[in-house]
């Protein structure tokens, strides 16, 4: 039994590695067509700089990018686990980010309470915004794909209106607009000590965002919730086989609502690493599209927190490479091609490994049926 699980894990891992390699082959073809050299491109991608400070900066940039991607992947995955396609993560995190930034800018509290309030406001806002499509689905049978896409448009326009209207604050003379700045107590301390612990210099600028630690915590909590609790089991059961779950006493309506709201609440956190760690307000330059990238990250990570973390790191690594690639005279759109190719290959590899695993299982079952002895350990 143990060996079957091990084999499946090895198969999955092998599939992922083959997928990444294949993606690089496809991308190399694209680079050659664009007139570049794949070898130079690969060198550029792994070029983190010459000095220690440059390397620390590059790693920081990568981790700061991975943090929101990881949270976005988690948010999407919660819905995915019960076959809920929450495309609305994009809108949920935008609306949550602006409300949280505004509320945070209005308060003056001791730092730990201030930060907790901001985080809670973001989660509640995101959760409430996800409640709308959940209710529509449960009580009116509206497909959540359609309702969440529509709600994304509303959230986007609403955020654009709020930041220029009721929630506007700060400098009015410039062309950019933003919510009132967060006071120092609402700014998340950086995590530069992680570098200094190893005797490395601190990165430049706003440093390594401390929200990274919150993200890791959220990842662990989600893992426990999904894999080790009754609630998580019911979510997975509803996703795997709705009728069977219903027959065994799971209330599907309740599951849809709680999974969707949980997904939205986690989505509410996506914008916070940036707001609490760098910009200290929601403004014109707020990073968009993270919700959509979260879909790719979740798919790539197989909807499992650890896989999502790896996928987020891979995407962040590729995103960071966009600048060194330009220094090497290779178009940065190569990065988008690689990302797209990897996701596509992983999806294909996932399907192929699933079929191989299924066939092996069948063979094993057949062998087990033929011989009365327990299935071979070395199968």
């Amino acid at each position, binding site marked *: 039994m143990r060996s079957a699980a091990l084999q499946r894990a090895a198969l999955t891992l092998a599939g992922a590695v083959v997928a990444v390699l294949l993606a690089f082959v496809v991308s190399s073809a694209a680079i050659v067509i664009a007139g570049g050299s794949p070898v130079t491109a690969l060198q550029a991608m792994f070029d983190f*700089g010459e000095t220690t400070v440059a390397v620390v900066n590059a790693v920081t940039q990568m981790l700061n990018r991975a943090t929101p991607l990881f949270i976005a992947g988690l948010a999407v995955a919660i819905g995915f686990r019960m076959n809920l396609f929450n495309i609305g993560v994009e809108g949920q995190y935008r609306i949550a980010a602006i409300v949280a930034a505004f509320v945070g800018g209005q308060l003056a509290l001791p730092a730990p309470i201030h930060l907790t309030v901001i985080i809670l406001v973001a989660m509640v806002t995101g959760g409430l915004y996800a409640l709308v499509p959940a209710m529509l689905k449960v009580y009116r049978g509206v497909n959540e794909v359609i309702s969440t896409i529509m709600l994304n448009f509303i959230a986007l326009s609403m955020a654009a209106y709020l930041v220029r209207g009721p929630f506007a604050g700060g400098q009015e003379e410039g062309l950019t607009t933003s919510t009132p700045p967060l006071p120092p107590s609402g700014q998340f301390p950086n995590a530069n000590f992680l570098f200094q612990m190893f005797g490395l210099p601190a990165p430049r600028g706003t440093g390594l965002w401390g929200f990274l630690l919150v993200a890791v915590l959220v990842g662990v909590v989600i893992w426990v919730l999904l894999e080790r609790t009754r609630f998580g089991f019911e979510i997975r059961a509803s996703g795997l086989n709705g009728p069977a779950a219903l027959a065994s006493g799971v209330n599907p309506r309740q599951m849809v609502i709680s999974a969707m709201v949980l997904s939205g609440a986690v989505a509410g956190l996506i914008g916070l690493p940036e707001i609490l760690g760098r910009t200290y307000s929601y403004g014109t330059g707020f990073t968009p599209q993270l919700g959509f990238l979260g879909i790719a990250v979740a798919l790539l990570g197989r909807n499992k927190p650890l896989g999502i973390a790896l996928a987020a790191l891979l995407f962040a690594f590729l*995103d*960071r490479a966009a600048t060194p690639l330009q220094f090497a005279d290779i178009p940065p759109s190569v990065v*988008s*091609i690689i990302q797209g190719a990897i996701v596509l290959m992983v999806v294909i590899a996932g399907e192929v490994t699933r079929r191989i695993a299924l066939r092996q299982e069948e063979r094993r079952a057949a062998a087990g049926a033929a011989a009365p002895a327990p299935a071979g350990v070395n199968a």
Partner: protein
Amino acid sequence: MLRKRFGRLAVTTLAGAMLMAVTACGGGGDTGATSASPGASDAGAGSGLKVGLAFDVGGRGDKSFNDSAYAGLERAKTELGADIRELSPAGDGSNRGAMLQQLADAGYNPIIAVGFAYEPELKTVAAEYPDVQFAIVDAGSVGPNVTGLTFAEQQGSYLAGVAAAAKTKTNHIGFVGGPESKLIQKFEAGYVAGAKATKPDIKIDISYLGADGDFAAFKAPDKGKIAAEKMYQAGADIVYHASGDSGQGVFQAAAAAGADKWAIGVDSDQAQTVKEPELQKIILTSMLKRVDNGVFEFIKANKGGAKGGQTVAYDLKVDGVGLSTTGDHLSDVQAQIDEAKQKIISGEITVPETP
């Protein structure tokens, strides 16, 4: 069964999203191919002047704003012997600050940030690199080592409004903006003021392609085309765009709308920067925003040892903005335009900056 269908749905949606991402980067694809020419090796051999430039989302190849900035950079290369390096940000603009840092770390000085969206990031980065000189296009100075380069878009757009109102036969014109930001509203405000001053009863359709902060609206020719098509169908015969790369769609709509339909370009002389001859023909004029001059003059002054800290305003007086005359479509109304120009320069007309 359900699971399978769900998986398929997931893959299809994702594939769609990826496709969109790839098309969004389509314009950026030209970057590498064309920028392969500047050799990094002539850094020592040249003047020792290493100029870095960071585009905004939309990037190279928009045949408008960003390309105008690049023209200034190229001029610095040929006339001042500068070693140049230009970078485009990620599609979501999340690495704006990091790009400026990387340019500074690589020894580029001065560094030019193209677009007002760099303002908050530049404030931090400029403070981290006090020995490097920066410039920002479309925003004021944000530090002692930052030069602001601002343009009086509303004045140039006023002239575009005068030209459109004088040339229209249907008494109906249009305006297509990118994101509805304060910057693009300056274009709208000037255009509307100029048109109304020329023909008080003129009908003006106004459409924006995205909300404030939605920089993708600068890179959506499909949306630009739909917006302009609507205006031409409603009877407008001249449409002015201030939407970067999306303007390509406006030109296509004008060309498809039939005879006597015109479009007005923006930032660059688009009758020259647009490649397709059938699109060149329908460009009545372009509102020039001489970002190229601003960039070049900044590099030149910097080479001469000038330091930042102030904001240079490019307006009609110094020909920082104006109308192009390629195609010679405006000769019959030139007197009217010149009169408006003189009145703006003398201060008789103050052009509004907000609609």
